[in-house]
């Protein structure tokens, strides 16, 4: 009761005492007009203020009178504006990059203290300038690989798609590109990510304390925002790398009002290799490409319209004999509308699709054509009400209509065609939320909210009924099939998802944060291989597959040192997961009508501590991170129904990333990673069946050994030419991945030697360590910018 009273008091307080006015507008980069996300706007006298939202918009309500506003953003010159508030005012502010003479080097007199002051915890942020300086495999700057260098984010190994956040599986991450979900974030399995660094503006990863406005996945939200495009001048960026060549063009459509960006990349190993291939292989295909584009228009009223899209594809082919390709497509349209100076609204509509196609067969007599898809349409309104500097309310909702096409398949054998397609699955996921960001006192801030999500698995197809499995961990027997009419619902689920975060400022440099979130996930990636393959399909929750749920609590200590030159944070988290998806032994997850009978629900738990020390200014920037963690699963039917470490469990993970600006021509970057080896399963014993050696594990334990520790160092040197032309700026990046040539194990497996033996004869066996990267990998690339 007391807290409600307090809440009401705060809600009304500022209105009650004096006349107030609102200043609103956008904060942008002075050079190219790109809006700045998370820039701070402060009233110098009182220290009360706000930060810009993802569209660069701010709204600040202050008492009437003269105010000095301090506008700042990491890497930009602070701007001070004196404003006489005698009415509501619109104020757009442009900030200039600091140290303009040294390209892309960040020197700031006084850093902001966002990490300490904001309520949000468990968030990994990397700006694109840092991502572009982190050494990378074959010199390809990579958003997802860079994120993996921060605590709490891991991968099973090189070449594996996706990433694991605080013990979550890869499908528990909601990867958003301009708000549209990207279902497969990798090119070439998992070697490169689909985001073109030339088109990316901002990357944030929420690992915990996930605000109520996000929903749909258990473990994390990777929010990737694309650049809007230079609204002042035309600009061409590009690069020639070892794998990709890139080109992007951006510029104003109408100066200061509308702009566009179009960015493309294509791999060209196949083009280079073609002349050296034998005649029989000339028809082979191996390439991947992506195209990212965006345009926006700013109305005089302050409203803004955006349209953005992504289209990417990976292609493999062996002449007419076999072909395989996959890719994502997304289109997002957004409209920002100001209902008043204090009420900012955004309406997003998107379409997203991931699909793959496979074909086999040289002649029409024997063919196998197969494709699968996950398509979705969504509408998502969101309103932010800036009540006063101490109180902000957000509310909104989302509806997603899914269409899963698990298999469209036609097989022809000896000229006889058979359609073996699986029925389309449709589902509707909806959510509504309300979120309140409240400064309870000057030292205590909170962001709490509630999300209600609902999922309906729709009719117009068969519903499958299963009985109890004969033994725990076996396939469930099918007991019935019923047709459910279109318009009816096969099964539905609803979940209340409370979210809360609190920040208690201990002093000006340090704070303590606490958070709790409950998350629910209604769609699941069916994947039982070590690394996910592009063939893995998504499935909705059905009458047989329950939604996954997770609860996470986190507590953290945040401290800035030496005038915010260093940021130190340490966090502890504990996460419980229910109804996570696992599979029976020997499951068939693709092209299987009865796949629901092969799914085993389980529970999971993940806990750990993450330590991060970042140096954000000076010639040397970078971070040291350490994670101590455990992630385990318990699935009836697996590992004798006992807890076992999940395949991506790493006890220790240590990371150093350093970027050193030697002078205005040379930048040296390096990173070093050390991680405990991931667990795997090896046989204890052997036997044979009809002359084939069979590996056997006496106690049936899953993940009964650990791979050797993983460690690796990479370096890269960026060289700017002596005298850069005013319009043409080029740079060379020379790098070495895995400098000291370590063969890190991706896995260890066992096999019998290749010889053929008669039943009864002895068979030789061996253990093999598989390293995806077996050597050091040098690279060189050239990047340019033309204005």
């Amino acid at each position, binding site marked *: 009761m007391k807290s409600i009273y307090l809440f009401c008091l705060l809600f009304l307080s500022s209105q009650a005492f004096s006349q107030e006015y609102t200043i609103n507008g956008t904060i942008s980069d002075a050079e190219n007009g790109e809006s700045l996300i998370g820039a701070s706007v402060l009233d110098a006298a009182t220290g009360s203020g706000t930060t810009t939202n993802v569209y660069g918009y701010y709204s600040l309500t202050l008492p009437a009178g003269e105010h000095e506003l301090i506008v700042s953003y990491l890497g930009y010159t602070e701007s001070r504006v004196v404003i006489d508030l005698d009415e509501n005012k619109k104020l757009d502010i442009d900030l200039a990059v600091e140290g303009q003479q040294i390209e892309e080097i960040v020197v700031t007199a006084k850093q902001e203290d966002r990490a300490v002051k904001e309520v949000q915890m468990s968030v990994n942020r990397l700006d694109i300038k840092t991502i572009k300086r982190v050494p990378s495999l074959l010199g390809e700057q990579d958003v997802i690989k860079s994120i993996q260098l921060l605590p709490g984010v891991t991968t099973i190994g090189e070449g594996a798609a996706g990433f694991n956040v605080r013990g979550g599986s890869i499908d528990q991450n909601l990867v958003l590109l301009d708000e549209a979900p990207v279902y497969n974030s990798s090119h070439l399995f998992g070697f490169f990510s689909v985001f073109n660094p030339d088109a990316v503006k901002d990357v944030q990863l929420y690992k915990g304390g996930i605000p109520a406005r996000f929903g749909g996945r258990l473990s994390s939200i990777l929010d990737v925002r694309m650049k809007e495009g230079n609204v002042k001048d035309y600009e061409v960026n590009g690069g020639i790398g070892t794998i990709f060549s890139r080109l992007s063009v951006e510029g104003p459509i109408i100066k200061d009002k509308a702009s566009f960006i179009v960015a493309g990349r294509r791999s060209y190993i196949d083009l280079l290799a073609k002349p050296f291939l034998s005649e029989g292989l000339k028809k082979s295909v191996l390439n991947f490409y992506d195209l990212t584009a965006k345009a926006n228009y700013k109305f005089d009223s302050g409203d803004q319209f955006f349209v953005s899209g992504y289209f990417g594809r990976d292609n493999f082919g062996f002449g007419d*004999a076999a072909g395989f390709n996959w890719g994502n497509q997304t289109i997002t349209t957004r409209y920002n509308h100001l209902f008043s100076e204090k009420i900012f609204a955004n309406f997003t509509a998107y379409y997203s699709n991931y699909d793959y196609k496979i074909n*086999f067969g040289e002649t029409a007599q*024997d063919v196998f054509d197969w494709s699968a898809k996950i398509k979705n349409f969504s509408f998502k309104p969101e309103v932010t009400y800036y009540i006063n500097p101490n109180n902000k309310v957000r509310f909104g909702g989302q509806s997603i209509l899914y269409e899963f096409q698990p298999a469209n398949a036609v097989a022809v054998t000896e000229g006889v065609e058979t359609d073996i397609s699986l029925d389309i699955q449709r589902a509707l996921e909806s959510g509504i939320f309300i979120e309140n960001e409240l400064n309870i006192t000057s030292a205590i801030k909170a962001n709490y909210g509630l999300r209600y999500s609902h999922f309906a698995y729709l009719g117009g197809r068969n519903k499958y009924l299963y009985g109890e499995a004969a033994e725990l961990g076996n396939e469930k027997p099918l007991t019935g099939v019923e047709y459910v009419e279109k318009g009816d619902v096969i099964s539905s689920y609803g979940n209340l998802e409370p979210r809360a975060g609190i920040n208690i400022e201990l002093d000006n440099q340090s704070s303590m944060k606490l958070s709790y979130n409950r998350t629910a996930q209604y769609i699941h990636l069916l994947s039982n291989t070590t690394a996910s393959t592009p063939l893995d399909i998504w499935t909705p929750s059905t009458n047989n597959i329950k939604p996954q749920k997770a609860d996470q609590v986190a507590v953290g200590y945040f401290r800035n040192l030496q005038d915010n030159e260093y940021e130190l944070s340490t966090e502890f988290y504990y996460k419980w997961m229910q109804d996570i998806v696992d599979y029976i032994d020997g499951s068939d997850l693709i092209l*299987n009508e009865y796949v629901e009978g092969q799914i085993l629900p389980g529970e999971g738990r993940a806990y750990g501590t993450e330590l991060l020390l970042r140096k954000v200014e000076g010639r040397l920037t970078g971070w040291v991170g350490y994670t101590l963690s455990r992630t385990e699963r318990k699935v009836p039917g697996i590992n004798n129904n006992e807890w076992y470490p999940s395949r991506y469990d790493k006890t220790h993970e240590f990371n150093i990333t350093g970027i050193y600006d030697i002078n205005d021509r040379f930048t040296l970057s390096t990173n070093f990673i050390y991680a405990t080896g991931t667990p795997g399963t090896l046989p204890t014993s*052997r036997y044979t069946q009809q002359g084939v050696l069979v590996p056997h*594990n006496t106690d049936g334990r899953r993940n009964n050994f650990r791979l050797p520790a993983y460690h690796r160092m990479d370096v890269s040197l960026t060289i700017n030419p002596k005298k850069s032309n005013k319009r043409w700026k080029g740079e060379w990046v020379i790098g070495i991945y895995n400098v000291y040539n370590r063969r890190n194990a*991706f896995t260890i*497996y066992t096999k019998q030697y290749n010889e053929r033996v008669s039943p009864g004869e002895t068979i030789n066996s061996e253990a093999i360590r598989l390293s995806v990267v077996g050597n050091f990998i040098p690279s060189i690339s050239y990047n340019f910018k033309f204005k």
Partner: protein
Amino acid sequence: MRNLFYFLIFSILFVLAGCEDAIDVDSGFTEEELVFDAWISNDATHRTISIYYTQDYYDNSPFKPETEALVEVSNGSEVFVFNHTGGGNYSNTTPILGTEGDTIKLKATVGDKTYRAHSVIHRVPEIDSITFAEEENPANGDTEILAEFFAKDFEGVGDTYWARAYLNDTLLNKPSEIVLIYDVSFIKGSNYDGGYFIRPLRLAINAVKDDGNFRSLEPGDEITVELNSISNHAYDYLQTVQEQATNGNNAIFALPFNNAAGNIKDEGGKRAIGFFQVSKLNTMTAVR
């Protein structure tokens, strides 16, 4: 078979930088367990049941045989004793153990324990023909002469077969040479049924070389295909055996480790290692 896609693609990738090294691993083996290797046919083609004990996975010496077992197979009306012929192998030479549709029971007494299993003799189609043709290998552009066998699956979902091939009298039994057929294809759960086996299965009777490609047939090479009917459980079992034995080929897309769960149990219901299967088979031989 179903991992063919990953294998094909990863093999290209792997050329980039990957590498494999043989290493020493401690298996942690402590407990020997009884194993049955009991894949027989209703006719006299396959009539050996082997009983022995598991050993350390990396121990390349012969298995310790069980020589004192009492092994009986019955078809409901007759009992056939399988006699020890040495090395843990037990045999019987009766021409016919049973006919299609019969349930054949195994009873084996080892020490004070009795193990039981049963197997139904399922239908198996005739092999229509074996042909030879030139094929271009899509992965390396080489031209190969390969054998292809034609047989038609019965109408009705759920027929499972195991094709064993012999090249010049050598049984092709590398793990990658196990040919498992679920109705027409290798895709269980797809309801793909009736008609000639799909082409990848028809070609799978060729010998696989160490590099993973098929061995091209020389003039005079003799190919024999023996098509065995097996139960759905036996299909799952052999699929697990094959997947686990060849899992390394899947590289980063390896399947989880799991023990193949057989059909032989002791009186307490505890599963023994290995499988008992009585197949009906049809055979055809062709010379290039």
